[in-house]
């Protein structure tokens, strides 16, 4: 059914979607300010812009999250004005959005998720499971996906498969335009390959896509045209054929970015942190080892990269070292040669070990608190006497820190949740720098962060290393690992599969090490 309607749109060759002069105000601030966007049937349009540029707002306007009337401008679908008051209205017009954070219900089966709210019913409101399973299987088959049991609960599948289930769900709604919002942010390299090939396949079948991503190589590969927005304004729409990624970046930031990784010379000293025999057991299934007897060392002024695919145990390893692993774990730690016993983040911070966690929204920000108090949270006692905060000294400190790390907020008491991802990340980073750690662990330091802030964070990392801090960087982005690290550990299946000095090291070397074991989907 999806293909029929899509084919129709393909024949007349006009714009499937035409957004004109969209303007969305929040108070006196224009998040989107006069943006035009056209998508033709069967094409993939890349939508690029830094965080906070207005991409998500624009897509929320399109998908009916912001109802008709709360924005200016018009939206035409097949030349017919779309006045969506709810998400259901825009879905009826054939527009589906796949959010960065997947919106599946983990406890329901794949089939139940695909048909959630549109269940096929039998007489008396009973669910017609056979018909739904059959249809779900057909949808997955059309996408060329196997290895998914539609009767299984979604929680048994990793984020890669969940994404595919979301796509099947969108197609089941006869979507003619699918919006992908940062689809690959939590996918492994192989899963991303599958996703890209499915997007290409969707295009062939006449389904149009809007692909929002910071990963410009993916955009370059899969998109036909690219629309760039900056500060809510439409900067330009170009055919991909006439662009390279450097030009896209220039359009996004409005200036030539210097080199992303400006290495600063730093001397590597003696060992600061020595972790031996770190073992983590799976929270749900204690027979399974997520980290299996891993040892590592990091030296003064050294940047140690930890690479590996999703599920390799990197985050588990560093959170165990930081005393924050949710399950059972064991580890022997030495800091500057002295054995330390770390069973809580509190003990870690006291021992001179700080960590910026992977999931900023879940583990990083304290959303309702201001940016300033978020920054001083880790060392609040420093600005207090007898437990009473000296508000003026604290304000003085966070003003200073915000200026130093270029955390941009109109007001330090503004809830941190209202800031862009880049500024949130810089604030959380500042919070964990204030205790003056000897060792800093950064888990995915630039996830969901715009290019400008990314560069600032890289510069900061080099700066800290040159001042003698030992830094561990866990990252899924190979260029980031290679650009930052002095030495790289590659993890796979809970073990260290490679220990490389970063001298002429190539992405292929890391990937080969990471893939040493055949990659499995996490089936808990």
């Amino acid at each position, binding site marked *: 059914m999806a293909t029929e309607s899509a084919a129709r749109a393909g024949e007349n060759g006009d714009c499937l979607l035409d957004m004109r002069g969209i303007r969305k105000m929040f108070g006196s601030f224009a998040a989107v300010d006069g943006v035009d966007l056209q998508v033709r049937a069967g094409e993939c349009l890349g939508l690029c812009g830094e965080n906070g540029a207005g991409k998500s707002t624009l897509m929320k306007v399109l998908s009916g999250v912001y109802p008709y009337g709360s924005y200016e401008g018009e939206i035409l679908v097949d030349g017919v004005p779309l006045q969506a008051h709810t998400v259901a209205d825009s879905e009826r017009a054939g527009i589906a959005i796949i959010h960065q954070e997947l919106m599946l219900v983990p406890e329901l089966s794949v089939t139940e998720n695909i048909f959630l709210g549109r269940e096929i019913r039998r007489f008396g409101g009973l669910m017609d499971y056979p018909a739904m399973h059959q249809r779900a299987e057909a949808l997955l088959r059309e996408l060329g996906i196997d290895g998914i049991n539609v009767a299984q609960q979604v929680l048994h599948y990793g984020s890669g498969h969940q994404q595919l289930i979301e796509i099947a769900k969108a197609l089941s709604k006869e979507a003619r335009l699918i919006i992908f919002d940062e689809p690959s942010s939590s996918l492994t390299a192989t899963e991303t390959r599958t996703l890209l090939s499915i997007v290409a396949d969707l295009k062939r079948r006449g389904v149009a896509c809007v692909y929002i991503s910071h990963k410009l190589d993916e955009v370059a590969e899969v998109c036909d045209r690219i629309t760039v927005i900056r500060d809510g304004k439409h900067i330009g729409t170009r055919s991909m054929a006439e662009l390279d990624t450097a030009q896209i970046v220039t359009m996004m930031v409005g200036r030539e970015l210097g080199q992303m990784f400006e290495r600063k010379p730093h001397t590597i000293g003696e060992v600061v942190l020595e972790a031996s025999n770190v073992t983590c057991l799976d929270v749900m299934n204690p027979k399974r080892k997520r980290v299996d007897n891993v040892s590592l060392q990091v030296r003064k002024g050294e940047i140690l990269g930890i690479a590996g695919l999703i599920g390799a145990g990197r985050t588990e390893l560093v959170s165990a070292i930081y005393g924050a692993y949710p399950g059972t774990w064991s580890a022997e730690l030495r800091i500057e040669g002295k054995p330390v016993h770390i069973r809580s983040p509190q003990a870690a911070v006291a021992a001179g070990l700080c960590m910026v966690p992977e999931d900023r929204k879940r583990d990083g*920000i304290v959303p*309702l608190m201001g940016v300033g108090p978020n920054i001083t*949270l880790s060392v609040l006692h420093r600005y207090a006497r007898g437990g009473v905060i000296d*508000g*003026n000294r604290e*304000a003085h400190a966070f003003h200073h820190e915000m200026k130093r790390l270029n955390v941009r907020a109109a007001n*330090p008491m503004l809830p941190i949740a209202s800031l862009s991802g880049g500024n949130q990340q810089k604030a959380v980073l500042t919070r964990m720098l204030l205790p003056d750690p000897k060792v800093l662990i950064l888990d995915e330091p630039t996830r969901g962060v715009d290019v400008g802030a990314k560069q600032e964070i890289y510069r900061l990392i080099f700066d800290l290393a040159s001042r003698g801090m030992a830094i561990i960087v866990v990252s899924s982005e190979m260029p980031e690992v290679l650009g930052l690290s002095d030495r790289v550990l590659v993890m796979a299946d809970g073990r260290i599969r490679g220990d490389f000095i970063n001298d002429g090291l190539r992405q292929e070397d890391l990937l080969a090490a990471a893939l040493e074991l055949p990659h499995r989907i996490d089936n808990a």
Partner: protein
Amino acid sequence: MNASVNVSPAPAGQNRTPGSTRIRQFFSQYKIVALLVAVALIWAYFSYATNGAFLTSRNISNLFRQMSITGMLALGMVFIIIAGEIDLSVGSLLGLLGGVAAILDISQHLPLPVTILLVLLLGALVGTFNGLWVTWLRVPSFIVGLGGMLAYRGALLGATGGSTIAPSSDAFVVIGQGYVSPATGNVLAVLILVLLAFVTWRRRTARQRLELKVSPVWMDAAKLVAAAVALFVFVHVLNDYGGIPVPVLLLLGLLAVFSFIATQTVFGRHIYAIGSNIEATRLSGINVDRVRLAVFALMGVMCAFAGLVNTARLAAGSPSAGINGELDAIAACFIGGASMRGGVGTVHGALVGVLVMASLDNGMSMIDVDAYWQMIVKGLILVLAVWADVVSSGARR
């Protein structure tokens, strides 16, 4: 009258604020203004319906005394709710601790200071016990509270043998029924005003030294004048009827302490942080379990205060004391702007919430509204107040 002790924390380090934030800031302050307007409307209505009897100094004095017990529970409860928890056991615990106080006073003839100290200590211990179940043993606080609600009521019945223990000693009764002499009330008001002026002056000089923005002199002066007027009207009205009731003075003192904890201390900041995102707070190197334990212990102490005042007011320990007390306290917190999801709420808001509930109780009793209607109205007001809060905060999503 809250203005007297609630030194507004004045968000540290305001830069230039854009219009939208200023509106939002005004909105969050407006919430308490809206509540006070609601109180004024309720008072105006009851005053009209009772031909002015509601607004006599005698009734106002009674009203404040009536709200002091729920007020004490609400002070402890608002911290629990801000931390993202709930405690349903406080009504029963109030009863139990009040009963223990009666036993110590009447059956054991202990001197008053010893009784008070023992009851407060027991309150802290039971609160800590509740907290240990929540933090250490990871039982949801709703369940721990539900269990405590049953168990503490049972313990009270057992301890009192199911009958009222009376009469309390004269010294004890003062806690619930006594008045501070009018002269003392006036002196206290002046002292508070001097203290307020001193704090304001110190903040100004400190901010100047650190080159932070200082609010204009007229603004601080206006605030002080407003505080002075509120303070003296309050004291004057109560002095008209024998002076400030002891439990009201106690409540105001505790309000000052709790407001101070919430806005000025590391502990208070950590409570808000935990309620907003406990995981992020833990990963920042904060011992979140210790903070939560302390919050539950404080709740226990407030139950002890409330139990002491309640027993003193009745001059007896009653096995039915404090029934539904937890519901009034929780309702007051939510009316006062606390959020079910934690991280949001103010101490003075919770107390204004108590004032709303107490005014309804008092006024409806005066105009002879049936008890069943009183319950229906209070229930409706709770839901309406939270609805208004949802609507006003939903508008700035």
